[in-house]
């Protein structure tokens, strides 16, 4: 049956192909251009600045009045899509493979790596665009083929949970005098006193059987941000979309209390944070 289907598909394709030839439809060389997406990390109004691990200087204060600093901040962006008012559509190529060069469409955006905060989408069909959609985290497509390379390679800095296999989609680490975390010297790794680690992962989406509870916590989020104005992509125009990511919004809206939330290392614990992520990504402005 499978083969029959395949054959039918093959036949249909060749049929279509023949048709096109007969009608002699001219192939329009669609013009393309590029669009740059910039992620700009802030803590409220302040530019985000990372502290050294172990630092006891606290530059920021949240709505609860708890002081904190940040030592690590970042996330995975994937499946970027641009859409326009007249049906314009661009979907970033998605691919995985064991070789780093075979991994496409996954971006590991890190506060510690300025270059990672700029994503240039190339080959975008000329036209008007008014919104961007992307996935925050790595969903099943990044997991189902097994070990893959590039920004998804755990030996190259990819964020991966071993025991409950999956990528950590978002990380915020730092310290707060309110965190009761005690120092741990793990021989090879160290957890500092008063530090906090918020790791958000969990990607399994499984429909429950009838009468059963929904299992697994899926913290992968799809975000759509409207542009402030239509922007035009063409071979000559390389517009930019500037997205602000506000760490304070995540903490305040999630009502994070560092005295209880300081070691988030499982999908279920990460859920309240994951729920705040979409509100923390704000399309600030676009440049034509």
């Amino acid at each position, binding site marked *: 049956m499978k083969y029959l289907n395949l054959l039918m598909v093959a036949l249909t394709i060749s049929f279509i192909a023949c048709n096109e030839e007969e009608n002699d439809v001219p192939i329009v060389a669609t013009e393309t251009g590029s669009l740059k997406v910039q992620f700009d990390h802030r803590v409220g109004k302040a530019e985000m600045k990372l502290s050294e691990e172990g630092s006891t200087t606290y530059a920021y204060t949240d709505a609860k009045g708890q002081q904190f600093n940040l030592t690590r901040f970042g996330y995975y962006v994937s499946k970027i899509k641009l859409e326009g008012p007249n049906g314009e559509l661009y979907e970033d190529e998605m691919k995985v493979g*064991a070789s780093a060069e075979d991994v496409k469409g996954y971006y590991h955006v890190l506060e510690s790596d300025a270059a990672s905060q700029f994503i240039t989408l190339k080959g975008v069909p000329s036209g008007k665009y008014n919104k961007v959609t992307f996935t925050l985290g790595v969903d099943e497509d990044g997991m189902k083929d097994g*070990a*893959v*390379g590039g920004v998804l*390679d755990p030996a190259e800095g990819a964020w991966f949970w071993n025991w409950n296999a999956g990528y950590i989609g978002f990380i915020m680490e730092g310290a707060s005098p309110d965190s009761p975390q005690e120092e741990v010297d793990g021989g090879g790794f160290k957890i500092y006193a008063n530090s906090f680690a918020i790791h958000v992962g969990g990607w399994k989406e499984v429909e429950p059987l009838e009468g059963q509870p929904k*299992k697994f916590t899926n913290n992968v989020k799809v975000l759509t941000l409207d542009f402030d104005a239509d922007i035009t992509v063409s071979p000559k125009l390389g517009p930019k979309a500037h997205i602000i990511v506000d760490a304070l919004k995540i903490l305040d809206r999630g009502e994070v209390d560092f005295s209880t939330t300081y070691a988030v290392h499982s999908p279920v614990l990460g859920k309240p944070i994951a729920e705040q992520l979409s509100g923390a990504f704000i399309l600030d402005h676009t440049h034509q």
Partner: protein
Amino acid sequence: MPYGLSRACLAIGLACSLSSLVFACTSEKEAIAPSKALFEFAKPTNFPEPIYTFESNPITEEGFRLGRKLFFDPILSSDGSVSCNNCHIQSNAFADAQQHPFSVGVDNRIGKRNAPPLMNLAFMKEFFWDGGVTHLDFVPINAIESDVEMNETLAEVIKKLNAHPEYPMLFEEVFGSEEVTSPFMLQALSQFMLMLVSADTRYDRFQRGVGEELSTEESIGLQLFKEKCANCHQGELFSDFSYRNNGIGTTDKDPGRSAITDTESDFGKFRVPSLRNVALTAPYMHNAKFATLEEVMDHYDRGVVDSPTLDPILKNEGILGISISEDEKKSIIAFLRTLTDHAFRLDSRFQNP
């Protein structure tokens, strides 16, 4: 005659090529490993379709050999003392040694679960007692990075392999890249482990009707097994690969499946293990609770502990356990022993060359 056949084919060309296509595909998949294809993955005829994503990691002889070298090489551990083979021993169907109910890693640190046998991994959708790992490639990262197993980081292992006199060349041969990277290392290990197919037991030969007979006691045991055990230890792999609580007692120390599904009703549930080679894999259960198959039988008969997530099959009409007479226990055990694959234990392909 060939003429007549091809004439017919011309007339209904499409159907013919279609059927030969179907034929080619099925016959290839169902073949039992021909001796020349020692390093090709072959699905045993009585097994279900494999689940592993061979498209992204096709097995080659060189890849298998590289994976085998890695499997036996303590370079994967932090102090160079522990290889995969320390806890997964061929003569035990790649389960751990009997004297290690809980696996022992570097510095003799003790893990919390009994190492399962490694066999027929291509047919499994999830790994570990709680199913926390969804692809075979990801399994070794756990062993390498676990502080109670090999206590090494993946990045450090890759560094060591790149600095090694032989490995870069071997990786180049297999993957076309002299730079050793973690996905290639994990794929090589998978290639070795995928070939660990165990399907040549007396039971299998009996099933395939190739001249093997079961004794009366074994046949009775098989019948009893089908009645009393096969609703969980189902099919030719002797597991439905679901997660259940079989009444060995639950503890907060190891919540099992619920830590993966975030669902309270999965507390204390563990994967139904395959029972192939079970006579070789003592002690039994995720927590190594029982030393012998006799103890396991006694457990199902009268040791089942009630708890909120106990499998309903083990609490039929309010009665705990499955009643099994002493004679029946002997028969079931006799049957379980027909599931030992001696050829697998001795297969020279799986030995450290």
